[in-house]
């Protein structure tokens, strides 16, 4: 709720365009957690919500470790993220990409 203050929220609540760092990945099932990790959704990686599907904005497509991954908001709620920068959907698409590479490599 008061995510702007805490800067910590669920991936499913992340507004489009905002970039964030993944803090923890804990899905409903252990198997789902492993699936997230195998797809590169893991702690320390940078994410950004790039697209939302029509009809209610669910599922979402997030950019993580250089790939675009589609998932539903509900499943994305098992992923805690720390918001890094408030930005509008279009302003810093490129810089966030670059940053994603730098951070995930360091």
């Amino acid at each position, binding site marked *: 709720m008061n995510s702007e203050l805490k800067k910590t929220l669920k991936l499913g609540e992340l507004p489009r365009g905002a970039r964030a760092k993944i803090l923890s990945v804990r899905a409903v099932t*252990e198997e*789902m*957690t*492993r*699936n*997230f*990790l*195998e*797809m*590169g959704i*893991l*702690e320390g990686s940078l994410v950004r919500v*790039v*697209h*939302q*599907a*029509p*009809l*209610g*904005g*669910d*599922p979402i*497509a997030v*950019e993580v*470790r*250089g*790939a*675009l*991954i*589609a*998932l*539903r908001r*509900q*499943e994305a709620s098992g992923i805690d993220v720390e918001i890094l920068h408030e930005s509008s959907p279009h302003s810093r*698409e*490129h810089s966030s*990409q670059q940053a994603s*590479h730098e951070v*995930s*490599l*360091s």
Partner: protein
Amino acid sequence: MTTSAWGSPLIALAGLPNCGKTSLFNALTGSRQKVANYPGVTVERKEGAIALPEGRTLRVLDLPGTYSLDARTPDEAITRDVLLGRVRGESLPVALIAVVDATNLERNLGLVMELRELGVPLVLALNMMDLAHRRGLELDLQALSQELHVPVIPTVAVKGRGLPELLSAVESAIQANACPVAVPDWKKPDAERIRARFQEVDRILKVCTKKSSAPAYWTERLDRVFLHPVLGFIVLGAVLALMFQAIFSWASVPQDAIEGAVAALGRWVGGFLAEGPLRSLLVDGVIAGVGSVLVFLPQILILYAFILILEDSGYLARAAFIMDRVMGGVGLHGRAFIPLLSSYACAIPGILSTRTIANPRDRLATILVAPLTTCSARLPVYTLLVGAFVPNITLWGPFRLQGAVLFGLYLLGTLAPLLVAWVLRKTLLRGPKPPLLMELPTYKRPSVRGVLLGLWERSRLFMRRAGTVILSLSVLVWFLSSYPQAPATVSGRAEVEEVGSARVSEAQLPAIHYSYAGKIGHAIEPFLRPLGFDWRVGIALIPGFAAREVMVSALGTVYAVEGDEENLQQELGARLASSWTLATALSLMVWYIFAPQCLSTLAVVRRETNTWRWAFFLLGYMTALAYLASFFTYQWVSWLGR
């Protein structure tokens, strides 16, 4: 594949989905490929042969793409089982080529870490290297090779670059491996293990990368349109409209050609044989039966061409993304969109393409509803009945009543699978909403060669099916409708054989009346009465069980209408219009929306679910639906007309 390759050492290609693995496989083996299924499952097994410069031959296996050996889908399980030597009759690979998308190392190397742990000689093919360079990647290949302890060969599969180097690296890796190939020791990794693997990937990449590659420019640009909340829907609609246009109008030219050729072959063969059982078996049973299915080859090829191109280009995953809300609303996976779409041509490719759905319950739900989609075999029946019974009056502008009725039939055939899926997910196949976790790959230009090879494989598989299952069913149906024969006094078909002339023999009962099919038709008449069908429709329904479209020619036989294709449709239409009520015709159309009139589909469901139980369930629920829907249609329309 040449026979000399038999017994040669086996190597395997493994990699993530969309890493260019199949392009590399095609580039390595050319047309020397053999496509079959793995025993017991319908996962495609693609093997090819490579002639090494020194004259030796290697067999290459193209394993299904996977993110990890911890498999989620039947395809991924095959990759794991082959690598662990768990597939019966499959030899363990002596070496692996890990195919990696060079534009996305931080994602791809995770699987390489896992493959490395197997202890099988491993060579890394750094594929799409040209693209990675263009996107600014600067990589120290030597350092990467040292850190990974694996030979690293840059390749560009689509241009055939780096292949000799790759093969010689594989050759050296096999020779350097002193210990014999043993079944690898593998444990399902836990979450910590996967995290550690990716940390190691990040460490290695930090050492080896001088400059990382920029994001895919065109993918971002295109997705702004294709995944746009409004434009995305419009684009998807346009793609689907084009596809239907292609399937239903462009295919008609080759279809007419095939029909003509089958008829000509029948006449040609018939010319050599005297009138009798053998001629009847060959011409009416084998040639007509197989021909009735071969006619669908152009439609199926066009459908597959579309699907292969859309899949190769990366668009199909986007379509699933856009449609997830609709599919998810009835409890299906977003990916179920593709099987349902394919089912408009034929339920069989549709059912086969459910293999990409991970959860067995989600997959089963999709398999069970796919046959409700209006496949193209229903079209000849609809065309006949709509043409005969619906007046062709103009509704508004270019829209006519016949077109509107046909549209209504398709609409029902679109809503029915969604409704039944919803019911199934609330009752028999209850369970949590299937999760969606799917990579949207970067857009690529589909390779002409890959699409052509894919089409060649599909048509071969389809022809083989036509030559086996459908051939035997056609013979069975021919037998049921030919024996026992009519008493000698009844005029046979020879009398009305003159090609082109369509004659109607009013006085006598057609020969089929005396056959087993006729007996069955009479026997089931009491059950069909409430639907408005008499024994003649009952008879036509029986051969129609082998394949829906056979119903049209069966009705022709029952109503003793003979002649060539055009005449048959017209004459039969006129005959039906004079002897059936509108209620009967509508009832039969509705019957065709729901009825499971396709033995091949049932056989495929049996094979895909590994049990007859679900095939019989499908048969049962679709028949019940068809019966109820036809019953209400007939009774209601009859009541209205009173």
